[in-house]
Structures are given as C-alpha cells and as structure tokens.
C-alpha cells in the first residue's frame, strides 16, 4: 500500500501548477470481520479498501476531496488526476478562506508495526470452540490498517499497524451481561482462552437475583470502561479550542467563569502509548503530551493550526476537528483491592451506555448503566442491579463528588469501525463518587 501511495504522491506533486499547494492523505485497511451471536457465526467477511484525500489550496481558497483507490497504480493515477482536475475547477469559484492552513510541514516519519494474526479462514475455528455453551455475542476484527500523509512541501508520514480485537458480551439466561475486549497484535491462543475463561467466571456473579433500585443519588464506583465513555464526551463539545471559542463546549465555564473540577482529575492527550500516529491530516506532528485538565484546572485545549490562525493562539497540531486522538486520565491512589470496601454501600458500574449531553453548556451528561453493575453493601457485592438512567453534571461528579481515583490504569481500545477500524485507545482509571444521580 505504501508503494502505491508513494507512487501517486510523487507523480501528482510534480504536476502541480504555480501557486498550488496540495496535501494528500491516505487511509486504508485490509480487515476481517466475524460477527458472532450465541457463540455461532452470524456474518463473516473481508473488506479491502483504500482512500486518497486531497487538500488543494490556491490563491487563498481551499477545496478538498477524496476518492476510492483500486490498488492498481495506472487506474488510481487516472482517478487522482481526475480529482485534481475537479478540485482545480472548483477552488477558483470558492470564497477566500482567511483561516486556511498551507500544508507547509516538512516533517517525515515512518512507522510500521507487524503482528502475528490468524488467517481469516481460521478465525471461526480458533474462536468459537473455546466459548463452549456460553451465550456470547460480539465482533472479531483483524488485519492491517494504513494511514499516510504527504504534502507539496515535502512532508511525508506513513503508519501501518496489524491488530486484532474480539469485543464481546456474555449473557446469562436471565439476560444479565458481562462485557470484555480481548485485543492485541500477536495472537496467543492460550492467552485468549484464559481471558475468555475469566470473563465466564465473572458472568457467574451475574446469576445472583437482580435488585431493583430507586432513582436517587448514590455512592458510586465507575470502572475504567465506563470512565472511558465519559472521557469520550470531551471530544464532542469539550476540549476543542474552537468549540470553547464558539460557545459550544462543556468547558466554557472553566475558561470563562474559572470553575474548577476536582483536584483528583487530570487529563491529557498522550501519544506515548504509540497506538495512534501523532501526525494529523496536514502532516503536522502533535506534542507527545498535551495537558488538558491538570488537577481540576483547565490547563490546555486541543488547538488546530486553523483555529490558532483564527484566534491568534498557538497550535498544538490537533486534528482539524480538535477531537482527542490519545486520551489519558491520570491515576490516583485507590487500590483495586480497596474499591468495594471504600465504596461501602452503593452501586458499582462496570460500563455505561449511550451517553449524550443533556445540557452541554452546563456539563450535564445523561446515559445508561449497562452490563455488570452491582448493588454493594458494606463492601460486598449483593446483587446485580437493573439498568438505570443517570443524568449528572461533570462539574458535580468530576468535581466536588469525585472522592477517589484508582491507582491502576486500564487500556480501553477503541473498537469502532464507522470510518474504518479505529486505532486509538483511552487510558484511564476507575473513579469513586460520593454521589451520582440515577434518574429513571
């Protein structure tokens, strides 16, 4: 794939006319997807695809586009030339863009990570027998993911990575569920079977008779998987500098009214794990770490070069949408072994579901509890709870009601596949809350 990208890049860049600036982005994947229901194969298939993005700038105007690539150089060069012709015809008709960013980065990088993945045809045979009689539903995704960036100033980046993930739910006959994700780069059958066996053991806890709790405010522990869902919300009307400037951010209160969260809450964009490349669509390389919230205070935001130009601030080379690519929350001091005792009596939430801002500016999030969620009394799990709706503000549950943060960090891989297989992961601990509002 890199050869194809390089060949097209080298050819197209030599065909640019005077005054034209061009950035090109490459994205592709060679993936197997095996969908499982009741520990059987529901759907199975492969997807091979690649796209080439264009960012053409001429006389202060910008037009962008993307095309599918076939993998055949001659065919794809024809398509690329056709797209460049279309962009040239369009860009002269567009209004001037005062905040456009010239693709001037000259940085280069090359990062290929090879794994050991099973053949697609072998996947049902290695996954399903270990499931035995358990009711398991989920999705296996594996294969290679590619990202590339090049520009007319000579900047060039390439990133390719092999990975697999089995994201699954185990379900009891009474419809209680446990969620888990087994992910990595090198397949290990023994490790997989041990991981799955551990999940099945956890499922047995769910066979206790469920307890129905009433709406109200409860002492609550949210495990790392649930915390990662909360942190994801900061990519949508959160840490984006443009969103704050345009009054579309939950953090506007922190910027404009000096409101603070708990000192226990620190949050960074941290690429040090290497899950996702540091270069953005313009080929700009972000710092390895950017502090966003430090001990409850707004320490920074994600600033794209476009936003930097508009508002006269410094870019930290965020993506154009200023969403997080490598979120990481700092650990605290609560030992995993002390979670239940410290919680005492309250609810233990392993996962959350379907979060949305119920009042973005007020920082209020609603969503559901899901999967292994328990009622705990005097430090002991008593019963799984029926799913509850919550509706609470980050200024409360990440503010005065944040009592403790676990010392252990968990890696929560993003298994999303809407725009192709995601590469990122959220690194975070669990959180203990003095009070959390369950509403329905």
């Amino acid at each position: 794939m890199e050869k194809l990208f390089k060949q097209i890049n080298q050819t197209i860049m030599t065909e640019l006319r005077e005054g034209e600036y061009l950035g090109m982005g490459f994205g592709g994947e060679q993936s197997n997807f095996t969908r499982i229901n009741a520990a059987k194969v529901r759907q199975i298939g492969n997807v091979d695809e690649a796209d080439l993005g264009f960012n053409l700038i001429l006389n202060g105007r910008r037009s962008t586009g993307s095309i599918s690539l076939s993998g055949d150089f001659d065919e794809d060069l024809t398509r690329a030339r056709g797209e460049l012709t279309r962009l040239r015809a369009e860009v002269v008709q567009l209004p001037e863009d005062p905040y456009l960013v010239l693709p001037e980065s000259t940085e280069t990088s090359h990062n290929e990570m090879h794994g050991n993945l099973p053949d697609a045809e072998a996947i049902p045979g290695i996954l399903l027998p270990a499931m035995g009689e358990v009711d398991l539903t989920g999705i296996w995704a594996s294969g290679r993911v590619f990202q590339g960036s090049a520009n007319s100033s000579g900047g060039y980046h390439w990133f390719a990575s092999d990975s697999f993930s089995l994201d699954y739910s185990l379900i009891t006959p009474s419809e209680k569920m446990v969620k888990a994700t087994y992910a990595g780069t090198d397949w290990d059958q023994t490790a997989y079977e041990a991981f799955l066996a551990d999940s099945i053991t956890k499922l047995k806890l769910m066979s206790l008779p469920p307890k129905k709790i009433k709406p109200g405010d409860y002492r609550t522990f949210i495990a790392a998987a649930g915390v990662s869902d909360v942190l994801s919300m900061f990519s949508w009307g959160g840490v984006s500098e443009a969103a704050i400037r345009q009054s579309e951010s939950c953090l506007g209160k922190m910027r404009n009214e000096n409101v603070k969260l708990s000192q226990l809450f620190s949050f960074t964009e941290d690429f040090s794990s290497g899950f996702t490349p540091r270069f953005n669509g313009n080929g700009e390389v972000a710092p390895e770490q950017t502090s966003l919230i430090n001990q409850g205070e707004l320490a920074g935001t994600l600033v794209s070069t476009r936003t930097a130009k508009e508002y006269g601030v410094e870019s930290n080379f965020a993506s154009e949408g200023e969403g997080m690519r490598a979120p990481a929350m700092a650990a605290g001091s609560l030992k995993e072994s002390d979670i239940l005792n410290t919680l005492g009596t309250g609810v233990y939430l392993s996962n959350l579901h379907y979060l949305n801002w119920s009042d973005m500016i007020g920082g209020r999030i609603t969503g559901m509890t899901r999967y292994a969620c328990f009622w705990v009394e005097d430090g002991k799990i008593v019963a799984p709870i029926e799913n509850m709706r919550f509706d609470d503000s980050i200024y409360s549950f990440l503010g005065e009601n944040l009592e403790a943060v676990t010392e252990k960090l968990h890696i929560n891989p993003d298994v999303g596949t809407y725009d192709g297989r995601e590469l990122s992961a959220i690194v975070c601990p669990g959180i203990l809350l003095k009070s959390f509002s369950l509403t329905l």
Partner: protein
Amino acid sequence: MDLHQILSGIDVRADWIGLRYVKENTGFRLVRDGKPEANTRESKQGVMVEVLVNGQFAYYGTSRLDKPGIQAAAERAVKLATAASKFSLHSFGVDARPVAKGSYSSPYQTAADAFSPGELSDLLIKATAELKVSDKVVTTNAMARTVETESHFVASNGSDVDQKYLMVSADYSAIAHDGSVTQKRTDGGLLAKSYQAGMEVFDEAAVLARCRNIGAEAVELLTAEECPTGTMDLVLAPDQMMLQIHESVGHALEIDRILGDERNYAGWSFVRLDDFGKLQYGSPLMNITFDPYVENQFASYAYDDGGLKAEKEFLIKEGLLIRGLGGMESQLRSGINGVANFRASSWNRAPIDRMANLNLEPGTSTQAEMIASVEKGVFMTSNRSWSIDDYRNKFQFGCEYGKLIENGKLTKTVKNPNYRAISNPFWRSLKMLGNRDTFEVYGTPFCGKGEPNQIIRVGHASPLCLFEGVEIFGGA
C-alpha cells in the same frame, strides 16, 4: 463497469453469488460566520461480493473493480463461507435472496449541478448573515450536504436492480450568548431537513426567511424561563417526533436486534418474538407504517440490498404490534412477518435490518384542538439531546425550544426542555394525534448500528402529538 459480464465470468462453487456495486459522491459545504469552513466531496466506489455456501453467507468488499479483482474476492468469500459453515448461527437457503428485477430513481426538480460551488457558497454566506439577527448571536453556521448514489445489484439467480438517488440535507444554526447563558437553535434539529430531492431545497427566499426565524428564536431563548419540572402533558412537534419514533419504535422493532445480533453493541429489545400480534404497543391512535414510497422522503427505494421488493406495511395498527422490521434473513430466522429493510450503508458493509421510512400516520385533531385540550403542559420542538437504554425502554430526550401551555393556550417560551419516560407506557399515553395539516416529513443521515459499524439514512414523518402525564424538566 459491466457487472453482468463480470458475474458471468466468475468461477467459484457457490449456491448463490451476488455483486453489489455502489458509487456515492457526498458533497459537503459549511460556512461559519460568513467564512468558508468546508468545501469537500467524498467519492467512494466498490463492489460487495456475497456468496452462499453450505448455508452460510460470506462477503468480500473490494475497491478493486476489475474482473481479476472480483474473481479473487469471490474465491476468498467462498473460503470464508466454507470455513464458517461449520459454526453457522442459521443455515440459509437461496430463498434468503429473492429474485429482483427493477429500478428506482429518486425524484427531484433541480439537478445537483444546477448550482455551481460558488453559487451555493454565496447562498450559505447570505444565510449566516441572516442568522445573525443581533450582536448576541455569537456563532452562525449554514451547511449543505448533497449525496448522489448509484447502486447496481446483480446475482446468480437473475436479480438485476438499478437504483439511483439524489439526496439533499441542509441546516442553519445560530448560537446566542449573553452573560452566562448560551442557547442554540437549528432548522428543526441537526440535518433533520434531509430529503430525496434536488437543489430546489435551496430556494433563497425560503432559506433566508427560515434563517431570520432561527436567529430570532436563539436570542429569544436567552431570556426565556427554565423549562418547569413536573409531570404534565407534552406536545411534541413532528421534528422531535422523528427522534421519538426512531429510538422508541424503530430500533425496538428491528428483528435482528430481537434475535440478539446487536446485544454487544446497539443492544437488545424489550420486544420479543411472541409479542407480534399481541403487544399493545401504544394507544389506539398509534399507526406506524414502513412506507418506502413517500414523495421526497429520505429513505425511499424500490428494493432492499437483499433483493426484496419494498412495499408499504403497517407495523403497528391501532396500537397493536403486528409486524417487524426485518428483511428476508430475519424473517427466515424468526418466522415473523417483516419488510424490505435489509440494507447496507455502502459497498463495504453487509446488509442488516435497518429502518427506512418509518412513519406515524396522521390522526384527526387540529393543532388548535390539541393545544386547547391542555390545562398544563409544554410544547417542545427540535431535538438536541437523545439517549435510550439498550432494550429501548428508558429514554431521555431534550429539545431546543419549548413553550408553556397554560389553560389551553401557548404562553411563555421556555429553554432547555427535556422529558424522560419508558417506551410502552409513553406510547400508550398518546392522547391526541394531529391531522394531515400537522404532518411533516423529516430524515437523518446519521443512524448508527451494526458490527462492523454502519451509518445509514432514514426518514421519519409524523403529525403533532399530545402525550399525557410525562416527566418533564429543565437544564442544569
């Protein structure tokens, strides 16, 4: 490309093979505060090769469009199906892919290329100017999205379906700010005005008039009272009913969800297979139809991606659940009557059960009669927040704009209106249903579901609705 020729040349051993070529060009233009933010076009094309071997379907989506590439994809799909057939959830026959021959072209008056990029940009710039009705409007956005799609499906059983679409979505929004209060108003919810239509949607006079109203309502909300808290009557505008139907009816009736396929992602359903024909889903006023032929509605088509011909069907009649949202695979698995809704988001995804046009049929009440019947309640319009549980039971939705209803009259404007309820009791509380004069058609490009994930377009139409005794509340 000649799909027939490619299909006839494919040499694999399969009980059935189908090729679905999709080419889709998505244009998107966004202007913020009079300045261009995005002028982009995404052009995607590829072929989904599907085979049936030993009762198991398998697929290979490839962007390689030549004969050797598709032959190789078919061979790999056969190997996958063969390997997976030892572990099949269900053994399908060729009846899962009915023979389909036909075509569809979406209706439009003005072709996509009738507006030049410059002309459309100019209109969007004017729109942002109209949205800024005062200095308190701090951010204005105008966006236009056009999608041109060609789909050609051929299969070894003789199926041959050509479908072409032109789809247009637009939205205009204003954010107003004063002191510590910020409020946003859009054109009926983000991209709710999504249609199978042409560039006639961008009639300048109509667009600019709407923008002035949107800007004015954003400013009006700055000084509005907080929505009251309490249990009271709720009148929902059709642009919010779109979301209400989608989340608390549509997803719950998807047969693949009921069969458990989505339990690891979107979730399950409170509806069970034995509820069909028995469950009183809502009040007798409730008639829900799957209707693929509503003029200009966003998800109209003639055949689904499995080759089933699309027909109008009642899913809920006089409140009684009678039919599910399931294509042939789900119908064969469940034994439940379904509809032609086996759809894929593009060439690179396999079809699953999706909503298409799912509508609440109009009733007989006028808007005036409905408002007059309410002693104390809130009217809400334009969705801004949505969340529902994995069984499609406990939901909480929020709107952009509300009006108090007091003693049969619309009175004060209220901000941050929200409500929460449980699906069946909520629908059973449907007390009055607006007539055809109140009936409006909407759609959204953004329905997410499936593993691997798929975003697909759906359409929803509804009259004005009155629900009694709903838990209503305001903002933070």
